């Protein structure tokens, strides 16, 4: 629709009100954040809280500066980032592929169903020690941990989405003489776009859970490693600094997915 000024006065008022609401919410959000950081810093400065336990915003920034100056910051960030993205891609890709295979082969689906359910309810962290023994310590086991956390739920969710496709739509394609592969590519997959985006959003959170958990178990670098190391030497500044960086990275990755969602929704008009 073109922007035009021949809207009614009521409509313009309505738009104004909506805009005002949006701005108010944003301002309140910023105030909360600034207030929280400000109060934290103030309480730390006046000695009302023990910075040895709580750290403080200025100390966190100082700590980040320190690690950055030794050049180690990038090593830790890139290690964790690499693991997270790798695990995210592998788990989402493999999980979706598995779902497609199970959609394709009903018998296989029936056979694997109880196993999937049990695997899904198993707390994956319990597999940690086993994974380390099997694939060794380091990146491999960390990525494996994260992949395991995501892959089963990805498969189950996507399989569900594929199966939820209306039968009448499948019939329509079959009345055109479509083969199974065409039903898959023309209908089943595009029909599940919303669910796929949902999976992406869940996984983008879970992948951090997985990699940080993996790094807690075994690692020589990464933000999870910094957090564990910091707590072992009781350097809360380091723990907090790593956590803050983690927050930022997770947020950035989330926004990339959100942006992707917007594009897809526009393309698919949903």
């Amino acid at each position: 629709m073109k922007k035009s000024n021949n809207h009614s006065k009521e409509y313009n008022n309505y738009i104004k009100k909506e805009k005002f609401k949006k701005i108010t919410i944003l301002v309140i959000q910023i105030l909360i954040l600034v207030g929280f950081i400000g109060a934290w810093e103030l309480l730390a400065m006046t000695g009302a809280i023990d910075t040895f336990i709580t750290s403080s915003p200025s100390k966190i920034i100082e700590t980040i500066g320190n690690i950055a100056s030794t050049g180690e910051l990038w090593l830790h960030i890139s290690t964790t980032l690499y693991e997270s993205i790798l695990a995210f891609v592998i788990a989402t890709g493999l999980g979706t592929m598995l779902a497609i295979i199970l959609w394709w082969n009903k018998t296989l689906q029936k056979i694997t169903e109880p196993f999937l359910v049990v695997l899904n309810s198993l707390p994956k962290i319990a597999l940690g020690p086993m994974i380390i023994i099997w694939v060794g310590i380091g990146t491999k086991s960390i990525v494996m941990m994260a992949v395991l956390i995501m892959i089963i739920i990805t498969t189950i969710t996507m399989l569900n989405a594929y199966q939820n496709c209306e039968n009448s739509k499948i019939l329509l394609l079959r009345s055109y003489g479509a083969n199974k592969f065409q039903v898959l590519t023309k209908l089943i997959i595009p029909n599940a776009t919303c669910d796929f985006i949902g999976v992406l959003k869940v996984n983008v959170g879970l992948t951090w859970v997985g990699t940080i958990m993996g790094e807690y178990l075994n690692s020589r670098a990464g933000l999870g490693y910094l957090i564990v190391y910091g707590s072992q030497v009781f350097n809360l500044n380091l723990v907090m600094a790593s956590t803050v960086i983690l927050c930022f990275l997770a947020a950035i990755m989330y926004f990339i997915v959100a942006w992707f969602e917007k594009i897809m929704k526009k393309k698919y008009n949903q």
Partner: protein
Amino acid sequence: MSILKLNNVSLTYFSKNGETKALDNISLDIKEKEFVSIVGPSGCGKTTILSLISGLLKPTDGNIEINNNSSENMIGYMFQKDELFEWRTILDNIYLGLEIQKKLNNDSKEYVEGLLKKYGLWDFRNSHPSQISGGMRQRAALIRTLALQPKILLLDEAFSALDYQTRLNVCDDVYKILKEEGITSILVTHDISEAISMSDRIIVLTKRPATIKTIHNINLSHIDTPLKRRESNESKELFNTIWEELQ
């Protein structure tokens, strides 16, 4: 000239809950460009007949002959819901069948363009289904089917999802389109008036397993649109007769 023949066709469904005999010894002979309606009690096997004709099902007994002088795909199928894909534009929805049969080329695109212009959807070709009205959606679904240039069109309660007003208009629209394109049509419907107003022949089925109860030949060709035919006295009489038969 006969275009489609069902010879003593029977069909039994097999499922975990047992077997269901849906059709029992159905014989039909449908002429080219004829408009035939099938009415019958709920669940008697009407959709099953269409599934057999379209080849989605194979008869348990008997056979189906389609007079296929061209090797072209012969049969189009329209369902109760328009089944337009929301993620595709109207134009891309209409291309769907062509894509699947790998017939999307300049000729077929041009043909579709002609249909869209002729039937008032050209301006909406880049809209998504949710952005156009129910009547237009049904027309889009029809063009999607016509794009494959079928000789026989199967309509399974194709209008029953529409509100009454729209439905009367769409019936007129579709009727006109089908006559213009010279397509043989088989309509399944619960609406007796609709069947009377559109058809040359009405086939009344019995309860499941369906057999043919009666066949009515209709002669309303002196009245030009289905809407006007609904109003005629002949059609009211016939309505009562068929109504009785369905009880």
